[in-house]
C-alpha cells in the first residue's frame, strides 16, 4: 500500500468517524484523532499532553514512511493496528512453566535465567509475588531518599507534569520522523527518570525492574533527565527472547544531560526475530537520541541487538554543550532472514566536543545489515574530535554487511578518523578450535565474543555476561 493510500484510508476513517467506548479495554483497529483522544482520556492526561499528541498525529498524516534504509518488508497497514489495549491481567497467562513452549524454556535455560525470572518472562501467573517486586519496592524507597524519580511514564505525567512538559519532545521533536511522530501521537507507556543536581544514582536503573517494564506495549516512550552534575546508568531490555503479538514497535527514547552530568544507556534487544524462513518477527523502528545540553556532559549508548526481524535504529548524540562527549558502542547480529539498518549520528555543535563510535556487525545465514553513521561538525564546533571504527564479521557466504559512513565537516579544526574492516569466520578457524577440543558452536562464540570485546566491556558486568551467552545462542547452528 502506498503512503498516499494510507493517508486516504486514514482520512476516510476520520471522515466517517466512530465513537470509541471509553470503558472498553482496547481500541478498535485504526488510527484517527478519535483514537488519540481515547488513549489520552484513558490515561487521564492533562490538556496540554492531548494537544501535543494531536499535533503529532496531524504532522504524522503529512509525513511519509522513510524508504532510505536498506531493509525491505511488505507495506505496513497502519489502520489494521490497535493502538490501545489495557495491560493484560495475570490470570490470562499460563498457570505454570509446564504450559510454556518448551523451546522457549530451553532458550531460557541456555541463557542461565533463574527459574522465578523465567516464570515472569513467560507470563506465568504466580501468586506469591517474586522477590524482584519486593526488591523493586525497597530500591524505590532508596531512590526516593536521594530525590531520584524513576517511574512509569504515565505515573510521571500525573506526579511530575512540570518535568515531563519541560523535557518531552525537547530532544526528539514530534516532527522528527515518521515513526517518532506516530509514537508521539499514540505512545502507550514507558519509563521516566530524573536525577537531581549532583546526585550519583547508586545502582544500575532497571536491573530489578526489567520484568515489570515488559508490558509497556509497542509504542514505548522513555525520557531520562540528568540534572547538573548527576550520573546515571540505565539498562533497557533483557536477554531472554521476548515475544509479542504486535509486529510493529516504534519506541522513542530521549536523554537530556545537563552540565557536567553523565548518562550511560545500555540496551540488550532480543525481540522475536521470526522463524528460520523469516516469517513473523518484530519490526523495530526506534528513535533514540540524547542531548548533551550542558557543558562537559556525557552520553554513552551501548547496545547489543540480536532480535527483531527488522531493526531500524540510530542512537544519536547532540553535542551541544562545550566539552561534551558522545559515545556509541554497538553489536548488531543478523541471522536467518533478519535485516538491520543501524548506526548513529554524532552532531558536534559545541566547542571541544568529542565522539567515539565503535560498531561491530555480525551477519549469519541470510542476514543483511547496514551500518549507517553520520558525523556532523557544525561551524561553531571548534576542535571537534571523532573516532569511528566499524567492523563487520560474516558467517557463511549468503549474508551481507555494508558500511555507509556520512561525514559533514563545517569547521576546519575538526579531527575525524574512520576505520572499517570486514572479516569472515573461516572453516579453518572453526576446525582449528575443534581440534583443540571446542565444539563448533563454542568456537564461533569464542571468535564472535573476541570480535565484540570492545563493546562488551562497556556493558555493566552482569549484562555483559548475559550478552555473551546470548550471542552464542543467537548464532547457534550458523556454522557447520
Amino acid at each position: 500500500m502506498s503512503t498516499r493510500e494510507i493517508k486516504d484510508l486514514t482520512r476516510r476513517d476520520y471522515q466517517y468517524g466512530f465513537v470509541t467506548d471509553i470503558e472498553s479495554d482496547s481500541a478498535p483497529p485504526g488510527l484517527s484523532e478519535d483514537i488519540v483522544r481515547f488513549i489520552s482520556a484513558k490515561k487521564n492526561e492533562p490538556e496540554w499532553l492531548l494537544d501535543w499528541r494531536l499535533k503529532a498525529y496531524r504532522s504524522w498524516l503529512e509525513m511519509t514512511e522513510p524508504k532510505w534504509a536498506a531493509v525491505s518488508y511488505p507495506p505496513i497497514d497502519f489502520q489494521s493496528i490497535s493502538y490501545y489495549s489495557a495491560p493484560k491481567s495475570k490470570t490470562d497467562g499460563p498457570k505454570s512453566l509446564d504450559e510454556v513452549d518448551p523451546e522457549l524454556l530451553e532458550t531460557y535455560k541456555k541463557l542461565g535465567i533463574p527459574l522465578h525470572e523465567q516464570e515472569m518472562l513467560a507470563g506465568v501467573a504466580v501468586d506469591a509475588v517474586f522477590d524482584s517486586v519486593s526488591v523493586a519496592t525497597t530500591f524505590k524507597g532508596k531512590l526516593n531518599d536521594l530525590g531520584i524519580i524513576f517511574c512509569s511514564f504515565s505515573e510521571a505525567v500525573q506526579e511530575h507534569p512540570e518535568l515531563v512538559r519541560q523535557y518531552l519532545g525537547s530532544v526528539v521533536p514530534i516532527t522528527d520522523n515518521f515513526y517518532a511522530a506516530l509514537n508521539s501521537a499514540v505512545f502507550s507507556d514507558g519509563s521516566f527518570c530524573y536525577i537531581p543536581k549532583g546526585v550519583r544514582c547508586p545502582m544500575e536503573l532497571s536491573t530489578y525492574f526489567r520484568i515489570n517494564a515488559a508490558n509497556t506495549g509497542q509504542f514505548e516512550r522513555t525520557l531520562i533527565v540528568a540534572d547538573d552534575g548527576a550520573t546515571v546508568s540505565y539498562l533497557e531490555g533483557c536477554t531472554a527472547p521476548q515475544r509479542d503479538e504486535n509486529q510493529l514497535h516504534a519506541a522513542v527514547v530521549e536523554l537530556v544531560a545537563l552540565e557536567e552530568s553523565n548518562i550511560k544507556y545500555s540496551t540488550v534487544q532480543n525481540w522475536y526475530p521470526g522463524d528460520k524462513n523469516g516469517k513473523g518477527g518484530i519490526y523495530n523502528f526506534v528513535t533514540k537520541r540524547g542531548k548533551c545540553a550542558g557543558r562537559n556532559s556525557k552520553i554513552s549508548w551501548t547496545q547489543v541487538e540480536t532480535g527483531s526481524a527488522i531493526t531500524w535504529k540510530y542512537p544519536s548524540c547532540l553535542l551541544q554543550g562545550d566539552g561534551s562527549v558522545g559515545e556509541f558502542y554497538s553489536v548488531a547480529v543478523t541471522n536467518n532472514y533478519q535485516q538491520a539498518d543501524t548506526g548513529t549520528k554524532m552532531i558536534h555543535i559545541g566547542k571541544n566536543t568529542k565522539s567515539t563510535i565503535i560498531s561491530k556487525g555480525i551477519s549469519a545465514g541470510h542476514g543483511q545489515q547496514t551500518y549507517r553513521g553520520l558525523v556532523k561538525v557544525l561551524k561553531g564546533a571548534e576542535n571537534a574530535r571523532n573516532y569511528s571504527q566499524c567492523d563487520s564479521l560474516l558467517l557463511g557466504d549468503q549474508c551481507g554487511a555494508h558500511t555507509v559512513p556520512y561525514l559533514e565537516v563545517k569547521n576546519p579544526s575538526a579531527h575525524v578518523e574512520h576505520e572499517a574492516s570486514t572479516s569472515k569466520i573461516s572453516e579453518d578457524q572453526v576446525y582449528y578450535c575443534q581440534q583443540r577440543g571446542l565444539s563448533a558452536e563454542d568456537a564461533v562464540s569464542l571468535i564472535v565474543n573476541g570480535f565484540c570485546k570492545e563493546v562488551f566491556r562497556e556493558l555493566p558486568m552482569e549484562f555483559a555476561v548475559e550478552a555473551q551467552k546470548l550471542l552464542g545462542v543467537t548464532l547457534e547452528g550458523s556454522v557447520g
Partner: protein
Amino acid sequence: MLTIKNLHASAGGAEILKALDLEVKSGEVHAIMGPNGSGKSTLAHVLAGREGYDVTEGHVTFDGQNLLDLSVEERACAGLFLGFQYPVEIPGVANNYFLRASLNAIRKARGEEELDAMDFLGLLKKKAALVEMDPKFLTRPVNVGFSGGEKKRNEILQMAVLEPKLAVLDETDSGLDIDALRVVSKGIESLRSPEHSIVLITHYQRLLDYVVPDVVHVFAGGRIVQSGGKELAIELEKNGYAAFESAASA
C-alpha cells in the same frame, strides 16, 4: 595407542591415502618422512577428522576406540593433538584465553574439574617457560601476526599445556631457526613418557637428532613404503626419495 589398517582416504575427489598401515604403541616416537605431496598432512587431517577428507576404506583405532566414529572435538578430547603445518590465526581471541577454553573443554569431556583463571595462569607460565616463549605472546590474539617460527612454537606451547596422549606434529620443525629448533625439540621431548606417543612429520633429519625416534617411516604415494630405525633417516638425507617413489608407484 594408534592402529591404522588398510586406510584409504580421498580429498577433493582424488584418492590420496592408499592402503596405509601404521601402528604406534604407547610411549613410542615415530617419524614420518616423505616427498612433498605424498599425503602426510592428509594423514594428519584424516586422523583429526577434518571435513572434506573422506575415508573410503580401512580402520583406525585410538586408545581402544574406533577413531573414525568420533567428531573432530571428540577426538581432541580423547587425547589426539594435531600440531598444524599452517597454524590458523584467530583475531580478537587472546592466546591465553583460547588455551584455557581449550584445556577446560578437554578436561570437562574427561570428567575433570575445569581450571580456574589462577590455576591456569600458573600452569601456562610454567609451560611458556619450557618453550621459552615471551609472555607478551600469551595475551596477543591467537597466531595473529606471529612469525612462522613463532606460530610453530605456539603449537608446541599448546601441546605442552594439553598433554595429549598422541601428538601428531606436522612439520613443526619447518621454518624454525637453529635456537628455536632446540627449544621446540625440548618441548616435544618433555611430552615423551610411557603414556604419551608422538608422530613427527618432518623433512629434516636434524630434528631427529634432538628427538630421537623409535621408528622412522618412509611415506610415498599415500602409504608407508618402508620402516626402520634412526639410520633410515640418515640414509634418506643422503640419497633422497628416488628409490622409494618408484617403489610406491610400482
